[in-house]
Protein backbone atom coordinates (compact mmCIF):
# COMPACT_ATOMS: atom_id res chain seq x y z
CA UNK A 1 0.00 0.00 0.00
CA UNK A 2 1.55 3.22 -1.08
CA UNK A 3 -0.68 6.11 -0.38
CA UNK A 4 -2.53 7.59 2.51
CA UNK A 5 -5.53 5.30 2.45
CA UNK A 6 -7.53 4.50 5.55
CA UNK A 7 -5.64 1.35 6.45
CA UNK A 8 -2.31 3.16 6.24
CA UNK A 9 -3.54 5.97 8.41
CA UNK A 10 -4.80 3.46 10.93
CA UNK A 11 -1.43 1.77 10.87
CA UNK A 12 0.21 4.90 12.24
CA UNK A 13 -2.77 5.99 14.31
CA UNK A 14 -0.99 5.55 17.66
CA UNK A 15 1.79 7.85 16.49
CA UNK A 16 -0.69 10.33 15.09
CA UNK A 17 -2.44 10.40 18.43
CA UNK A 18 0.84 11.19 20.17
CA UNK A 19 1.75 13.90 17.68
CA UNK A 20 -1.65 15.55 17.93
CA UNK A 21 -1.28 15.44 21.69
CA UNK A 22 2.06 17.18 21.39
CA UNK A 23 0.48 19.94 19.32
CA UNK A 24 -2.47 20.16 21.70
CA UNK A 25 -0.15 20.55 24.67
CA UNK A 26 1.86 23.29 23.05
CA UNK A 27 -1.28 25.11 21.96
CA UNK A 28 -2.77 24.78 25.40
CA UNK A 29 0.40 26.18 26.90
CA UNK A 30 0.25 29.21 24.66
CA UNK A 31 -3.43 29.78 25.47
CA UNK A 32 -3.03 29.44 29.22
CA UNK A 33 0.09 31.56 29.11
CA UNK A 34 -1.77 34.27 27.22
CA UNK A 35 -4.64 34.14 29.66
CA UNK A 36 -2.20 34.47 32.49
CA UNK A 37 -0.47 37.44 30.89
CA UNK A 38 -3.76 39.10 30.03
CA UNK A 39 -4.84 39.27 33.62
CA UNK A 40 -1.42 40.63 34.41
CA UNK A 41 -1.57 43.44 31.88
CA UNK A 42 -5.28 44.21 32.23
CA UNK A 43 -5.11 44.94 35.92
CA UNK A 44 -3.21 47.86 37.31
CA UNK A 45 -0.77 45.55 38.99
CA UNK A 46 0.16 41.99 38.27
CA UNK A 47 -1.36 39.84 40.95
CA UNK A 48 1.01 37.06 41.76
CA UNK A 49 -1.73 34.72 42.90
CA UNK A 50 -3.38 34.93 39.49
CA UNK A 51 -0.27 33.92 37.60
CA UNK A 52 0.25 31.30 40.26
CA UNK A 53 -3.23 29.92 39.67
CA UNK A 54 -2.69 29.76 35.93
CA UNK A 55 0.52 27.86 36.57
CA UNK A 56 -1.36 25.64 38.96
CA UNK A 57 -4.01 24.92 36.32
CA UNK A 58 -1.56 24.13 33.58
CA UNK A 59 0.55 21.95 35.85
CA UNK A 60 -2.47 19.69 36.19
CA UNK A 61 -4.06 20.12 32.77
CA UNK A 62 -0.99 19.45 30.65
CA UNK A 63 -0.09 16.04 31.99
CA UNK A 64 -3.72 15.12 31.72
CA UNK A 65 -3.78 16.03 28.06
CA UNK A 66 -0.70 13.87 27.61
CA UNK A 67 -2.14 10.95 29.48
CA UNK A 68 -5.36 11.19 27.54
CA UNK A 69 -3.42 11.22 24.30
CA UNK A 70 -1.43 8.19 25.37
CA UNK A 71 -4.61 6.42 26.40
CA UNK A 72 -6.08 7.10 22.97
CA UNK A 73 -2.91 5.81 21.39
CA UNK A 74 -3.26 2.65 23.51
CA UNK A 75 -6.76 2.23 22.15
CA UNK A 76 -5.39 2.37 18.61
CA UNK A 77 -2.65 -0.04 19.49
CA UNK A 78 -5.21 -2.42 20.89
CA UNK A 79 -7.12 -2.22 17.61
CA UNK A 80 -3.97 -2.92 15.65
CA UNK A 81 -3.14 -5.85 17.90
CA UNK A 82 -6.49 -7.45 17.12
CA UNK A 83 -6.37 -6.45 13.47
CA UNK A 84 -3.07 -8.09 12.74
CA UNK A 85 -3.84 -11.37 14.31
CA UNK A 86 -1.76 -13.35 11.88
CA UNK A 87 1.20 -11.50 10.57
CA UNK A 88 2.86 -8.15 10.34
CA UNK A 89 1.64 -5.88 7.57
CA UNK A 90 3.70 -3.27 5.78
CA UNK A 91 2.46 0.17 4.83
CA UNK A 92 3.68 3.27 2.98
CA UNK A 93 5.65 1.34 0.38
CA UNK A 94 7.10 -0.91 3.05
CA UNK A 95 8.36 2.06 5.03
CA UNK A 96 6.78 0.80 8.22
CA UNK A 97 5.66 -2.53 9.46
CA UNK A 98 2.93 -3.13 12.01
CA UNK A 99 3.36 -6.27 14.02
CA UNK A 100 2.86 -7.47 17.55
CA UNK A 101 6.53 -7.22 18.36
CA UNK A 102 6.48 -3.53 17.57
CA UNK A 103 3.21 -3.07 19.38
CA UNK A 104 4.58 -4.56 22.59
CA UNK A 105 7.75 -2.49 22.41
CA UNK A 106 5.63 0.56 21.61
CA UNK A 107 3.43 -0.21 24.57
CA UNK A 108 6.44 -0.28 26.88
CA UNK A 109 7.58 3.07 25.51
CA UNK A 110 4.17 4.68 25.93
CA UNK A 111 3.80 3.28 29.42
CA UNK A 112 7.09 4.98 30.22
CA UNK A 113 5.79 8.22 28.73
CA UNK A 114 2.52 7.86 30.64
CA UNK A 115 4.25 7.31 33.96
CA UNK A 116 6.61 10.20 33.23
CA UNK A 117 3.68 12.52 32.58
CA UNK A 118 1.86 11.22 35.63
CA UNK A 119 4.82 11.66 37.93
CA UNK A 120 5.51 15.14 36.56
CA UNK A 121 2.24 16.63 37.78
CA UNK A 122 3.77 18.40 40.74
CA UNK A 123 7.36 17.83 39.75
CA UNK A 124 7.53 19.98 36.62
CA UNK A 125 6.28 22.97 38.54
CA UNK A 126 8.69 22.45 41.38
CA UNK A 127 11.60 22.13 38.97
CA UNK A 128 10.60 25.42 37.29
CA UNK A 129 10.19 23.77 33.91
CA UNK A 130 8.09 25.27 31.11
CA UNK A 131 5.20 22.87 30.73
CA UNK A 132 4.42 23.31 27.04
CA UNK A 133 7.88 22.45 25.79
CA UNK A 134 8.36 19.79 28.41
CA UNK A 135 5.27 17.75 27.71
CA UNK A 136 5.36 18.54 23.99
CA UNK A 137 8.87 17.22 23.64
CA UNK A 138 8.04 14.12 25.67
CA UNK A 139 5.20 13.38 23.27
CA UNK A 140 7.38 14.07 20.24
CA UNK A 141 10.12 11.87 21.59
CA UNK A 142 7.64 9.06 22.21
CA UNK A 143 6.35 9.41 18.67
CA UNK A 144 9.92 9.24 17.41
CA UNK A 145 10.50 6.09 19.41
CA UNK A 146 7.33 4.55 18.01
CA UNK A 147 8.47 5.30 14.46
CA UNK A 148 11.87 3.92 15.29
CA UNK A 149 10.23 0.71 16.43
CA UNK A 150 8.00 0.46 13.39
CA UNK A 151 10.49 1.60 10.78
CA UNK A 152 11.22 -0.91 8.09
CA UNK A 153 13.89 0.87 6.10
CA UNK A 154 17.05 2.80 6.80
CA UNK A 155 15.43 6.19 6.25
CA UNK A 156 12.78 5.50 8.85
CA UNK A 157 15.42 4.13 11.19
CA UNK A 158 17.56 7.22 10.86
CA UNK A 159 14.67 9.67 11.10
CA UNK A 160 13.25 7.84 14.10
CA UNK A 161 16.59 7.96 15.87
CA UNK A 162 17.03 11.63 15.06
CA UNK A 163 13.51 12.64 16.11
CA UNK A 164 13.97 10.80 19.37
CA UNK A 165 17.46 12.13 19.97
CA UNK A 166 16.74 15.76 19.14
CA UNK A 167 13.79 15.79 21.53
CA UNK A 168 15.80 14.08 24.23
CA UNK A 169 18.78 16.46 23.85
CA UNK A 170 16.43 19.34 24.47
CA UNK A 171 14.72 17.53 27.33
CA UNK A 172 18.05 16.89 29.02
CA UNK A 173 18.62 20.61 29.16
CA UNK A 174 14.99 21.38 30.01
CA UNK A 175 15.93 22.94 33.33
CA UNK A 176 18.35 25.19 31.54
CA UNK A 177 19.02 27.46 34.49
CA UNK A 178 21.11 24.64 35.96
CA UNK A 179 24.65 24.61 34.69
CA UNK A 180 25.21 20.86 34.79
CA UNK A 181 22.00 20.25 32.88
CA UNK A 182 23.13 22.27 29.88
CA UNK A 183 26.59 20.83 30.11
CA UNK A 184 25.32 17.27 30.04
CA UNK A 185 22.99 18.04 27.15
CA UNK A 186 25.84 19.61 25.20
CA UNK A 187 28.03 16.57 25.72
CA UNK A 188 25.19 14.27 24.86
CA UNK A 189 24.52 16.27 21.74
CA UNK A 190 28.10 16.30 20.50
CA UNK A 191 28.55 12.59 21.03
CA UNK A 192 25.10 11.85 19.64
CA UNK A 193 25.71 13.83 16.49
CA UNK A 194 29.11 12.20 16.13
CA UNK A 195 27.67 8.71 16.42
CA UNK A 196 24.76 9.61 14.14
CA UNK A 197 27.28 10.58 11.50
CA UNK A 198 29.04 7.24 11.92
CA UNK A 199 25.69 5.47 11.76
CA UNK A 200 24.80 7.31 8.59
CA UNK A 201 28.12 6.45 7.03
CA UNK A 202 27.48 2.83 7.87
CA UNK A 203 24.05 3.05 6.28
CA UNK A 204 25.65 4.39 3.11
CA UNK A 205 27.93 1.38 2.99
CA UNK A 206 25.07 -0.95 3.76
CA UNK A 207 23.16 0.58 0.91
CA UNK A 208 26.21 0.31 -1.30
CA UNK A 209 26.57 -3.36 -0.49
CA UNK A 210 22.98 -4.40 -0.97
CA UNK A 211 21.51 -1.80 -3.30
CA UNK A 212 18.50 -1.32 -1.10
CA UNK A 213 17.53 0.48 2.05
CA UNK A 214 14.66 -1.78 2.91
CA UNK A 215 15.16 -4.20 5.80
CA UNK A 216 13.70 -7.24 4.11
CA UNK A 217 15.73 -6.65 0.97
CA UNK A 218 19.04 -6.51 2.74
CA UNK A 219 18.86 -10.02 4.11
CA UNK A 220 20.21 -11.96 1.17
CA UNK A 221 23.94 -12.37 1.70
CA UNK A 222 25.17 -9.87 -0.82
CA UNK A 223 27.65 -10.42 -3.58
CA UNK A 224 30.25 -8.28 -1.95
CA UNK A 225 30.63 -8.90 1.71
CA UNK A 226 33.29 -6.22 2.10
CA UNK A 227 31.11 -3.17 2.11
CA UNK A 228 28.37 -5.13 3.82
CA UNK A 229 30.49 -5.86 6.86
CA UNK A 230 31.73 -2.30 7.12
CA UNK A 231 28.11 -1.22 6.99
CA UNK A 232 27.11 -3.64 9.75
CA UNK A 233 30.00 -2.53 11.92
CA UNK A 234 29.20 1.15 11.72
CA UNK A 235 25.46 0.69 12.11
CA UNK A 236 25.99 -1.48 15.16
CA UNK A 237 28.10 1.27 16.62
CA UNK A 238 25.40 3.85 16.05
CA UNK A 239 22.78 1.71 17.79
CA UNK A 240 25.21 0.66 20.53
CA UNK A 241 25.64 4.34 21.29
CA UNK A 242 21.91 4.85 21.66
CA UNK A 243 21.49 1.90 24.00
CA UNK A 244 24.54 2.98 25.97
CA UNK A 245 26.83 0.00 25.50
CA UNK A 246 30.44 0.23 26.60
CA UNK A 247 32.62 1.87 25.19
CA UNK A 248 29.96 4.12 23.67
CA UNK A 249 28.25 4.81 26.98
CA UNK A 250 29.91 7.98 28.21
CA UNK A 251 26.98 10.22 27.56
CA UNK A 252 24.69 8.18 29.79
CA UNK A 253 26.04 8.94 33.29
CA UNK A 254 26.26 12.65 32.60
CA UNK A 255 22.88 12.92 30.97
CA UNK A 256 21.06 10.80 33.55
CA UNK A 257 22.65 12.63 36.43
CA UNK A 258 22.04 16.13 35.18
CA UNK A 259 18.60 15.79 33.62
CA UNK A 260 15.54 16.08 35.84
CA UNK A 261 14.80 12.61 37.21
CA UNK A 262 11.57 12.27 35.27
CA UNK A 263 13.49 12.78 32.06
CA UNK A 264 16.36 10.55 33.13
CA UNK A 265 14.05 7.60 33.58
CA UNK A 266 12.08 8.39 30.44
CA UNK A 267 15.23 8.61 28.41
CA UNK A 268 16.76 5.50 29.96
CA UNK A 269 13.66 3.45 29.36
CA UNK A 270 12.25 4.89 26.15
CA UNK A 271 15.43 5.33 24.15
CA UNK A 272 16.71 1.95 25.26
CA UNK A 273 13.51 0.10 24.48
CA UNK A 274 13.08 1.71 21.08
CA UNK A 275 16.73 1.28 20.10
CA UNK A 276 16.74 -2.35 21.18
CA UNK A 277 13.55 -2.98 19.24
CA UNK A 278 15.08 -1.37 16.16
CA UNK A 279 18.29 -3.32 16.65
CA UNK A 280 16.37 -6.57 16.92
CA UNK A 281 14.26 -5.78 13.89
CA UNK A 282 17.33 -4.93 11.87
CA UNK A 283 18.98 -8.07 13.13
CA UNK A 284 16.30 -10.59 12.38
CA UNK A 285 15.18 -9.12 9.07
CA UNK A 286 18.55 -8.33 7.58
CA UNK A 287 21.61 -9.44 9.43
CA UNK A 288 20.82 -12.74 11.08
CA UNK A 289 22.07 -14.85 8.19
CA UNK A 290 25.61 -13.66 8.54
CA UNK A 291 25.54 -13.33 12.31
CA UNK A 292 27.59 -16.46 12.83
CA UNK A 293 30.52 -14.54 11.40
CA UNK A 294 30.41 -11.58 13.74
CA UNK A 295 28.53 -12.55 16.88
CA UNK A 296 31.84 -11.95 18.70
CA UNK A 297 31.25 -8.22 18.45
CA UNK A 298 28.02 -8.07 20.48
CA UNK A 299 29.54 -10.74 22.72
CA UNK A 300 32.45 -8.49 23.52
CA UNK A 301 30.18 -5.47 23.91
CA UNK A 302 27.97 -7.38 26.31
CA UNK A 303 30.89 -8.50 28.47
CA UNK A 304 32.44 -5.03 28.60
CA UNK A 305 29.11 -3.43 29.32
CA UNK A 306 28.14 -5.78 32.13
CA UNK A 307 31.50 -5.57 33.86
CA UNK A 308 32.28 -1.91 33.44
CA UNK A 309 28.75 -0.79 34.21
CA UNK A 310 28.60 -2.74 37.43
CA UNK A 311 32.14 -1.94 38.54
CA UNK A 312 31.84 1.77 38.03
CA UNK A 313 28.48 1.92 39.73
CA UNK A 314 30.06 0.79 42.99
CA UNK A 315 32.10 3.90 43.55
CA UNK A 316 29.33 6.40 42.87
CA UNK A 317 28.07 8.77 45.50
CA UNK A 318 25.21 10.22 43.49
CA UNK A 319 22.26 7.90 43.18
CA UNK A 320 21.23 9.13 39.75
CA UNK A 321 24.72 8.57 38.44
CA UNK A 322 24.74 5.17 40.09
CA UNK A 323 21.44 4.34 38.42
CA UNK A 324 22.95 5.51 35.13
CA UNK A 325 25.82 3.07 35.46
CA UNK A 326 23.41 0.41 36.56
CA UNK A 327 21.35 1.12 33.46
CA UNK A 328 24.49 0.58 31.43
CA UNK A 329 24.90 -2.76 33.18
CA UNK A 330 21.31 -3.63 32.34
CA UNK A 331 22.03 -2.79 28.72
CA UNK A 332 24.75 -5.39 29.03
CA UNK A 333 22.32 -8.03 30.29
CA UNK A 334 19.99 -7.31 27.40
CA UNK A 335 22.94 -7.46 25.01
CA UNK A 336 23.57 -10.95 26.35
CA UNK A 337 20.10 -11.78 25.08
CA UNK A 338 20.86 -10.13 21.74
CA UNK A 339 24.03 -12.16 21.41
CA UNK A 340 22.07 -15.27 22.24
CA UNK A 341 20.01 -14.64 19.10
CA UNK A 342 23.07 -14.98 16.93
CA UNK A 343 24.67 -17.90 15.25
CA UNK A 344 21.75 -20.21 15.95
CA UNK A 345 18.99 -21.68 13.86
CA UNK A 346 16.76 -19.03 12.41
CA UNK A 347 13.35 -19.59 13.91
CA UNK A 348 13.94 -22.25 16.55
CA UNK A 349 16.63 -20.58 18.59
CA UNK A 350 15.33 -17.04 18.40
CA UNK A 351 12.05 -17.28 20.26
CA UNK A 352 13.49 -17.61 23.74
CA UNK A 353 16.08 -14.81 23.63
CA UNK A 354 13.89 -12.35 21.80
CA UNK A 355 10.87 -12.84 24.02
CA UNK A 356 13.09 -12.59 27.08
CA UNK A 357 14.50 -9.31 25.81
CA UNK A 358 10.99 -7.91 25.48
CA UNK A 359 10.20 -9.09 28.99
CA UNK A 360 13.41 -7.60 30.33
CA UNK A 361 12.68 -4.25 28.74
CA UNK A 362 9.25 -4.16 30.34
CA UNK A 363 10.62 -5.04 33.78
CA UNK A 364 13.48 -2.62 33.38
CA UNK A 365 11.04 0.15 32.51
CA UNK A 366 9.13 -0.34 35.74
CA UNK A 367 12.07 -0.62 38.11
CA UNK A 368 13.98 2.23 36.59
CA UNK A 369 11.06 4.62 36.55
CA UNK A 370 10.29 3.63 40.11
CA UNK A 371 13.81 4.20 41.37
CA UNK A 372 14.06 7.59 39.71
CA UNK A 373 10.61 8.53 41.00
CA UNK A 374 11.93 8.12 44.55
CA UNK A 375 14.59 10.75 43.90
CA UNK A 376 11.83 13.00 42.58
CA UNK A 377 9.61 12.35 45.55
CA UNK A 378 12.16 13.37 48.15
CA UNK A 379 13.60 16.30 46.25
CA UNK A 380 12.99 19.88 47.29
CA UNK A 381 12.89 23.14 45.35
CA UNK A 382 14.57 22.53 42.01
CA UNK A 383 16.78 19.69 43.16
CA UNK A 384 16.44 15.95 43.05
CA UNK A 385 17.28 13.93 46.12
CA UNK A 386 20.37 12.35 44.70
CA UNK A 387 23.04 11.99 47.40
CA UNK A 388 23.27 8.32 48.33
CA UNK A 389 24.31 9.14 51.89
CA UNK A 390 21.10 11.12 52.23
CA UNK A 391 19.06 7.93 52.16
CA UNK A 392 20.27 6.89 55.59
CA UNK A 393 17.38 6.23 57.91
CA UNK A 394 14.66 6.67 55.31
CA UNK A 395 12.87 3.57 56.55
CA UNK A 396 12.23 5.11 59.95
CA UNK A 397 10.79 8.32 58.65
CA UNK A 398 8.96 7.07 55.56
CA UNK A 399 8.54 3.31 55.76
CA UNK A 400 6.35 2.92 52.69
CA UNK A 401 8.68 4.95 50.51
CA UNK A 402 11.62 2.94 51.77
CA UNK A 403 9.74 -0.28 51.08
CA UNK A 404 9.10 0.82 47.51
CA UNK A 405 12.75 1.75 47.09
CA UNK A 406 13.78 -1.61 48.53
CA UNK A 407 11.53 -3.33 46.00
CA UNK A 408 13.16 -1.41 43.15
CA UNK A 409 16.66 -2.08 44.43
CA UNK A 410 16.02 -5.78 44.96
CA UNK A 411 14.47 -5.99 41.55
CA UNK A 412 17.40 -4.20 39.93
CA UNK A 413 19.75 -6.55 41.75
CA UNK A 414 17.75 -9.50 40.49
CA UNK A 415 16.62 -10.96 43.78
CA UNK A 416 13.45 -13.02 43.76
CA UNK A 417 10.51 -12.64 43.88
CA UNK A 418 10.83 -9.33 42.05
CA UNK A 419 10.42 -8.98 38.32
CA UNK A 420 14.11 -8.29 37.88
CA UNK A 421 14.95 -11.81 38.91
CA UNK A 422 12.61 -13.41 36.39
CA UNK A 423 13.89 -11.10 33.67
CA UNK A 424 17.50 -12.00 34.34
CA UNK A 425 16.55 -15.63 34.64
CA UNK A 426 14.95 -15.66 31.21
CA UNK A 427 17.86 -13.86 29.60
CA UNK A 428 20.54 -16.07 31.09
CA UNK A 429 18.54 -19.18 30.39
CA UNK A 430 18.17 -18.31 26.73
CA UNK A 431 21.88 -17.58 26.52
CA UNK A 432 22.73 -20.96 27.99
CA UNK A 433 20.19 -22.68 25.80
CA UNK A 434 21.86 -21.27 22.73
CA UNK A 435 25.31 -22.28 23.90
CA UNK A 436 26.62 -19.01 25.32
CA UNK A 437 27.43 -20.43 28.72
CA UNK A 438 30.39 -18.17 29.46
CA UNK A 439 28.36 -15.14 28.58
CA UNK A 440 25.70 -16.20 31.05
CA UNK A 441 28.31 -16.81 33.72
CA UNK A 442 29.78 -13.37 33.21
CA UNK A 443 26.29 -11.95 33.38
CA UNK A 444 25.66 -13.71 36.67
CA UNK A 445 29.00 -12.51 38.05
CA UNK A 446 28.02 -9.00 37.03
CA UNK A 447 24.73 -9.27 38.80
CA UNK A 448 26.48 -10.55 41.92
CA UNK A 449 28.75 -7.52 41.85
CA UNK A 450 25.69 -5.37 41.48
CA UNK A 451 24.30 -6.64 44.77
CA UNK A 452 26.99 -4.57 46.53
CA UNK A 453 25.74 -1.22 45.42
CA UNK A 454 22.03 -1.91 45.35
CA UNK A 455 22.15 -3.44 48.79
CA UNK A 456 24.08 -0.46 50.09
CA UNK A 457 21.01 1.70 49.57
CA UNK A 458 18.80 -0.78 51.39
CA UNK A 459 21.27 -1.01 54.25
CA UNK A 460 21.41 2.76 54.48
CA UNK A 461 17.66 3.09 54.49
CA UNK A 462 16.98 0.41 57.05
CA UNK A 463 20.03 0.20 59.23
CA UNK A 464 21.43 3.68 59.64
CA UNK A 465 20.02 6.60 61.54
CA UNK A 466 18.86 9.67 59.69
CA UNK A 467 21.34 12.52 59.42
CA UNK A 468 18.96 15.33 60.19
CA UNK A 469 15.39 15.50 61.32
CA UNK A 470 13.78 17.33 58.47
CA UNK A 471 15.68 15.95 55.51
CA UNK A 472 12.87 13.78 54.22
CA UNK A 473 10.18 16.42 54.27
CA UNK A 474 9.10 17.01 50.73
CA UNK A 475 7.12 20.15 50.12
CA UNK A 476 4.47 19.16 47.61
CA UNK A 477 1.38 17.08 47.52
CA UNK A 478 2.55 14.45 45.09
CA UNK A 479 -0.34 12.18 44.33
CA UNK A 480 0.95 11.58 40.80
CA UNK A 481 4.24 10.34 42.16
CA UNK A 482 2.50 8.21 44.75
CA UNK A 483 0.49 6.57 42.07
CA UNK A 484 3.56 6.04 39.91
CA UNK A 485 5.45 4.44 42.78
CA UNK A 486 2.56 2.21 43.64
CA UNK A 487 2.01 1.15 40.04
CA UNK A 488 5.67 0.37 39.38
CA UNK A 489 6.22 -1.50 42.64
CA UNK A 490 3.03 -3.52 42.19
CA UNK A 491 3.92 -4.16 38.57
CA UNK A 492 7.32 -5.49 39.54
CA UNK A 493 5.83 -7.85 42.07
CA UNK A 494 3.24 -9.04 39.58
CA UNK A 495 5.81 -9.55 36.84
CA UNK A 496 8.02 -11.36 39.32
CA UNK A 497 5.34 -13.62 40.69
CA UNK A 498 3.21 -14.16 37.60
CA UNK A 499 5.45 -13.61 34.60
CA UNK A 500 3.70 -16.33 32.60
CA UNK A 501 1.08 -14.23 30.87
CA UNK A 502 3.34 -11.43 29.80
CA UNK A 503 5.94 -13.84 28.51
CA UNK A 504 3.21 -15.60 26.57
CA UNK A 505 2.36 -12.33 24.84
CA UNK A 506 6.01 -11.74 24.09
CA UNK A 507 6.34 -15.22 22.65
CA UNK A 508 3.28 -14.75 20.48
CA UNK A 509 4.69 -11.47 19.26
CA UNK A 510 8.09 -12.89 18.54
CA UNK A 511 6.82 -16.05 16.89
CA UNK A 512 4.70 -14.02 14.53
CA UNK A 513 7.80 -12.23 13.47
CA UNK A 514 9.90 -15.23 12.63
Amino acid sequence: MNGFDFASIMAISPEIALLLTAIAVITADICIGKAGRKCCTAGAACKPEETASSTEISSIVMPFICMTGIAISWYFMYNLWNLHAVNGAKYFSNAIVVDKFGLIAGFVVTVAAFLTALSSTGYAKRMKIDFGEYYGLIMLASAGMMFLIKGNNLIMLFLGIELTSLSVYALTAISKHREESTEAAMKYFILGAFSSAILLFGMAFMYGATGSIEFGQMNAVPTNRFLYFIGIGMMLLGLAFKIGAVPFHMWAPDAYQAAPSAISSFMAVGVKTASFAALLRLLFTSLIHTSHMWYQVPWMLAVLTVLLGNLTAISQTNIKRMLAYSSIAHTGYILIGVTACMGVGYSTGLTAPMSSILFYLAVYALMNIGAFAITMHLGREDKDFDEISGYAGLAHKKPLLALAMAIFMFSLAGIPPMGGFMAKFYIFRSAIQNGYIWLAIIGIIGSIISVYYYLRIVVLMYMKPAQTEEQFESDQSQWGLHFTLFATAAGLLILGLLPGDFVQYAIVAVKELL
Partner: protein
Amino acid sequence: MFNPTNCLILSILLFAIGAYGVIAKRNILIMLMSVEIMLNAANLAFLTFARLYNDPTAHVFVLMNMAVAAAEVAVGLALLICVFRHKKSVDSTKLNLLKW
Protein backbone atom coordinates in the same frame (compact mmCIF):
# COMPACT_ATOMS: atom_id res chain seq x y z
CA MET B 1 34.75 8.89 -16.44
CA PHE B 2 33.04 7.83 -13.22
CA ASN B 3 35.20 5.94 -10.82
CA PRO B 4 33.47 4.86 -7.59
CA THR B 5 36.75 4.09 -5.84
CA ASN B 6 37.90 7.69 -6.04
CA CYS B 7 34.57 9.05 -4.83
CA LEU B 8 34.38 6.62 -1.93
CA ILE B 9 37.95 7.22 -0.84
CA LEU B 10 37.27 10.93 -1.01
CA SER B 11 34.25 10.47 1.23
CA ILE B 12 36.30 8.33 3.63
CA LEU B 13 38.90 11.09 3.78
CA LEU B 14 36.25 13.68 4.52
CA PHE B 15 34.82 11.39 7.20
CA ALA B 16 38.21 10.98 8.85
CA ILE B 17 38.88 14.72 8.73
CA GLY B 18 35.53 15.36 10.35
CA ALA B 19 36.25 12.79 13.02
CA TYR B 20 39.61 14.42 13.66
CA GLY B 21 37.85 17.74 14.13
CA VAL B 22 35.42 16.32 16.70
CA ILE B 23 38.17 14.63 18.67
CA ALA B 24 40.99 17.12 18.48
CA LYS B 25 39.28 20.53 18.49
CA ARG B 26 38.32 22.04 21.80
CA ASN B 27 36.08 24.69 20.30
CA ILE B 28 32.52 23.36 20.33
CA LEU B 29 31.57 25.50 17.32
CA ILE B 30 34.24 23.88 15.23
CA MET B 31 33.33 20.46 16.58
CA LEU B 32 29.81 21.00 15.29
CA MET B 33 31.21 22.04 11.93
CA SER B 34 33.27 18.86 11.86
CA VAL B 35 30.13 16.83 12.42
CA GLU B 36 28.67 18.55 9.38
CA ILE B 37 31.70 17.49 7.37
CA MET B 38 31.12 13.91 8.46
CA LEU B 39 27.48 14.04 7.42
CA ASN B 40 28.60 15.43 4.07
CA ALA B 41 30.95 12.52 3.67
CA ALA B 42 28.09 10.12 4.24
CA ASN B 43 25.98 11.94 1.68
CA LEU B 44 28.79 11.71 -0.84
CA ALA B 45 29.00 7.97 -0.28
CA PHE B 46 25.26 7.66 -0.71
CA LEU B 47 25.29 9.51 -4.00
CA THR B 48 28.20 7.47 -5.27
CA PHE B 49 26.25 4.30 -4.65
CA ALA B 50 23.13 5.87 -6.17
CA ARG B 51 25.10 6.47 -9.29
CA LEU B 52 26.32 2.90 -9.14
CA TYR B 53 22.84 1.43 -8.85
CA ASN B 54 21.01 4.10 -10.84
CA ASP B 55 18.66 4.37 -7.90
CA PRO B 56 16.93 7.62 -6.87
CA THR B 57 16.15 6.28 -3.38
CA ALA B 58 19.51 7.40 -2.11
CA HIS B 59 18.85 10.88 -3.44
CA VAL B 60 15.78 11.06 -1.24
CA PHE B 61 17.82 9.79 1.66
CA VAL B 62 20.42 12.49 1.10
CA LEU B 63 17.75 15.14 0.99
CA MET B 64 16.37 13.90 4.29
CA ASN B 65 19.87 13.94 5.76
CA MET B 66 20.29 17.55 4.83
CA ALA B 67 17.08 18.46 6.60
CA VAL B 68 18.14 16.45 9.62
CA ALA B 69 21.54 18.11 9.59
CA ALA B 70 19.92 21.53 9.57
CA ALA B 71 17.64 20.58 12.45
CA GLU B 72 20.54 19.11 14.37
CA VAL B 73 22.64 22.21 13.94
CA ALA B 74 19.77 24.36 15.15
CA VAL B 75 19.42 22.37 18.36
CA GLY B 76 23.16 22.13 18.80
CA LEU B 77 23.74 25.83 18.45
CA ALA B 78 20.83 26.62 20.77
CA LEU B 79 22.40 24.32 23.33
CA LEU B 80 25.72 26.03 22.79
CA ILE B 81 24.12 29.40 23.52
CA CYS B 82 22.67 27.90 26.66
CA VAL B 83 26.06 26.58 27.73
CA PHE B 84 27.72 29.87 26.89
CA ARG B 85 25.35 31.70 29.22
CA HIS B 86 26.63 29.61 32.10
CA LYS B 87 30.27 29.14 31.24
CA LYS B 88 31.05 32.22 29.20
CA SER B 89 33.11 30.00 26.95
CA VAL B 90 32.77 27.55 24.09
CA ASP B 91 35.77 25.58 25.23
CA SER B 92 34.82 21.92 25.58
CA THR B 93 37.30 21.39 28.40
CA LYS B 94 35.32 23.85 30.49
CA LEU B 95 32.47 21.35 30.47
CA ASN B 96 33.92 19.52 33.43
CA LEU B 97 31.30 19.58 36.16
CA LEU B 98 30.19 16.06 35.46
CA LYS B 99 32.69 13.31 35.66
CA TRP B 100 33.45 9.92 37.26
